[in-house]
């Protein structure tokens, strides 16, 4: 089986202005949403209490919410998961310990259904949350800087580096934007997923760039736009194949992994889709518009160290 029986020759580069426009619109929507609505941070980051409980049969969200309000909890956030039997309750910060929260919630939820089981109680102090958030941003920043450094060292020309860095920035912004728009809880696992996306989405860009360099090696008189189109086409079936396989496992995680991994797998799915798109339409296209030519990649016939390996 093959996705493409013959070598493809889609003219990717000729439509790049359209895709630039699309990306700019999506990024603007994301940034606006991020600055207006912000992210729905989980207790990892804000501090507070979450309780996870399982009912013997499907339960109504409003029933649980009103039971909590009656018990004196102002504005409890109740989320219902897949089977409608599992719920997560988010409560504001408290001085109580997990034991006290468990006893109290047990009592309240028993009023809804006597067969309820409180499965997990998490109490996070506000200080811890603030620190985690700042260390998460630092990690994101440090990763981007390190990767940018690696790319600039690896590809000899700023044209490719700029393309790759823009593509790398593009993907996490879209993931953050989606989380902001959908109000999905943004917790530490989502940050982990975004970092994985940053590392992973660059895969495609690097593979395409590698091919571009190889094509220029083969024939340095070719038009850059031709080389770029050829390189993307030649790596296209690999790109799609890899993404399909990764999406298979990540979707399995999304469907079967349960509530803990829901946000994590969602971020990965969006990131992988955005990464595929950005490696085709952002990184290469930006390099082309920056005036990429053969001589930028072949600095006086000095071979790159990796090429001389087996």
């Amino acid at each position, binding site marked *: *089986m*093959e996705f493409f029986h013959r070598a493809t020759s889609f003219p990717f580069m000729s439509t790049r202005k359209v895709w630039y426009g699309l990306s700019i619109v999506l990024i603007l929507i994301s940034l606006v949403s991020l600055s207006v609505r912000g992210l729905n941070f989980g207790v990892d980051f804000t501090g507070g209490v979450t309780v*996870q409980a*399982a009912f013997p049969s499907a339960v109504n969200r409003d029933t649980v919410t009103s039971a909590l309000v009656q018990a004196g909890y102002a504005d409890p956030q109740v989320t219902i998961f897949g089977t409608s039997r599992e719920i997560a309750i988010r409560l504001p910060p408290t*001085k109580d*310990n*997990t*034991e*006290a929260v*468990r006893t109290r919630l047990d009592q309240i939820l028993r009023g809804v259904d006597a067969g309820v*089981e*409180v*499965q*997990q*109680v*998490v*109490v996070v*102090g506000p*200080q811890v949350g603030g620190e985690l958030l700042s260390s998460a941003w630092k*990690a994101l920043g440090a*990763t981007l800087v*390190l990767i940018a450094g690696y*790319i600039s060292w690896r590809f000899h020309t700023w044209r490719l580096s700029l393309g790759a860095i823009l593509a790398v920035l593009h993907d996490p912004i879209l993931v953050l934007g989606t989380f902001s728009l959908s109000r999905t809880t943004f917790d*530490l*696992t989502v940050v*982990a997923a975004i*970092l*994985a996306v*940053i*590392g992973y989405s*660059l*895969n*495609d860009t*690097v*593979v395409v760039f*590698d091919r571009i360099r190889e094509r220029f090696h083969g024939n340095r008189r070719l038009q850059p736009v031709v080389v770029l189109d050829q390189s993307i086409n*030649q*790596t296209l*079936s*690999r790109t799609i194949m*890899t993404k399909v*396989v*990764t*999406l*298979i*496992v*990540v979707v*399995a*995680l999304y469907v*079967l*992994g*349960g509530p*803990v*991994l829901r946000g*994590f*797998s969602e971020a*990965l799915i969006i990131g992988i889709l955005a990464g595929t798109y950005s490696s085709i339409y952002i990184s290469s296209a930006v390099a082309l518009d920056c005036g990429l030519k053969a001589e930028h990649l072949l600095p006086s016939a000095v071979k790159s160290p*990796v*090429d001389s390996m*087996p």
Partner: protein
Amino acid sequence: MLEFPRWKYVLVALVMFVAAVLALPNVFGEDPALQIERKDRAPMDDQARQSIEDLLHKQQIVIRRDYIDNGRLIVAFNDVASQIKARDTVDATLADIDRSALSNATRAPAWMRKLGLKAMPLGLDLRGGLYLLYQVDVNGAVSQLLDSYQQSFRRGLAEAKIPFTDVAAFNSGAGQVTDGLRVTLPPGSDTSAVTSALRKVDNSLTFRSAAGAEGPEVDMVLTPAQIKAREDYALEQNRTTLMNRVNELGVSEPIVQRQGLDRINVQLPGVQNSAEVKDLLGKVATLEFRLVDTQDSPLQAQQSGHAPLGAKLYKRKDGSPILLKREVVVTGDELTQATSTTSQEGPAVSIKLDARGAESMQRTTRLNVGKPLAVVFIEKSRHQVDLNGQKVERNVTTETVINVATIRGVFGPQFEVTGLAIGEARDLSLLLRSGSLAAPVDVVEERAIGPSLGQENIDKGVRALEIGMLAVFVFMFIYYHAFGLVADAVLLANVVLLTALLSMLRASLSLPGIAGIILTVGIAVDANVLIYERIREELRNGVSPQAAIRAGFDKAFSAIADSNVTALIAGLALWVIGTGAIRGFAIVLTLGIATSMFTSLMGSRALITLMYGGRAKVARLSIG
């Protein structure tokens, strides 16, 4: 002909064999078990094992198997009900000599256990338990250090017979915390004599003299390095103390580790009741020895609410007031050993002092024969108090004089203290033995994960892994035929290798860790896809099959290396910042990238060369 050096075949085979052996214990699963150890840490022997077996048989509890591991007896059962019943039986009959803890016993055969082969430990989210994150008040540790220097300075100046107005802590302004001591002297004093007297207390301190408003001053300011060392010491000391106390709780496989600059996390598998555990872990109890102030009237001090200069008002156990001198003869820090015993006068704690404490005790008792010496029992614990109708947790310190005795002779470094109830004597000796907390601690994060949720999380994670991998396997076979099967074998080898590494490193597996394994499967496919697509491309260009294979591996190498480096950078960043479950994910991701490089470049090439390399000419490749 395709060539693949023989030593590489041997290497691949060897690595995979070792990995398979290391990963094997994970296959067997676990039974609910009871872990029993002697309270005095003496190793269990066959006789003890026999008697516990007999005890359980009498209660009609079916034992699946039992063995001695590291001096502890592990008894495995068929179900949780028997496990709980057995624990209750052991606790009821053998509580005096044995300590039991609920745990899990691997079903792996004995020889594996004896070789030290163990399954990956499961994180709390997969087995249930209690997670506590303690914030250590490191500033408190610095002020404790200053307090103890203040005592020594007063002592040192008194010994050198140098008059002084006051010794007090002050903030030099270098940092946020109070970081120095100021000795104020009467006008006209000689500061150099003071400095040399204080040097004798601790030679590593730096002093500077200045002219103050009320007379000359000598300042001692701790250097940033000294502050850092103290904070570090406090953190390490608290970790050790918490670890010792956790061990006294009898929890199986507890984890107590430092986190960041001022935090300690405690993971207690199988524990659910946080209130009880927090109470014991955060408790501070110690003894202090002070001379009794016999010149002033304690009743008068109690009525006026003011203690006379140089004295402090205390209460005895019966509530009556007593005045003690401000100078501490021996502090709790100077106790090195404490064991509960019984004396003629009832329960007692046998105390041993360190050199500094012993010297101070010896000197004080020699100079004060015939005078009374008091023992103060200090207990700090957190209590919920009602504050304007709101429940607030507060540190509560109670100081009680438990014993006043007339000094009959010079005290050596070891003696007995009476005046405590049996339970108090035992608790005190336990808390003194586990070490005191060098700085106050406070719980800032708490997670209680029920055992059923743990099992559910394992089931979900494993199911996602199985289904995800199966789908990938089928898809790769359909897409690449025989080469797809090679890729499948390589993916499987990758999971085995990763499991082996994780088991060897004893990195605990969490749900995000399982997600990392699943993601690694997806990423590991990429290397194979790059190679196969390259081979197909070469074939399309009319290259002969064997040359296509060679070119595929060679030309895909730089793309594979490059693309993995970036993922590795992200994985390492995550490893460095992450804690708990996130770090688990980062470890899996980083190791997974490394193992996938090995399996796809070496393993996959070895298999394909085995398939196609031997023949002189290959007409067609089964690559879909």
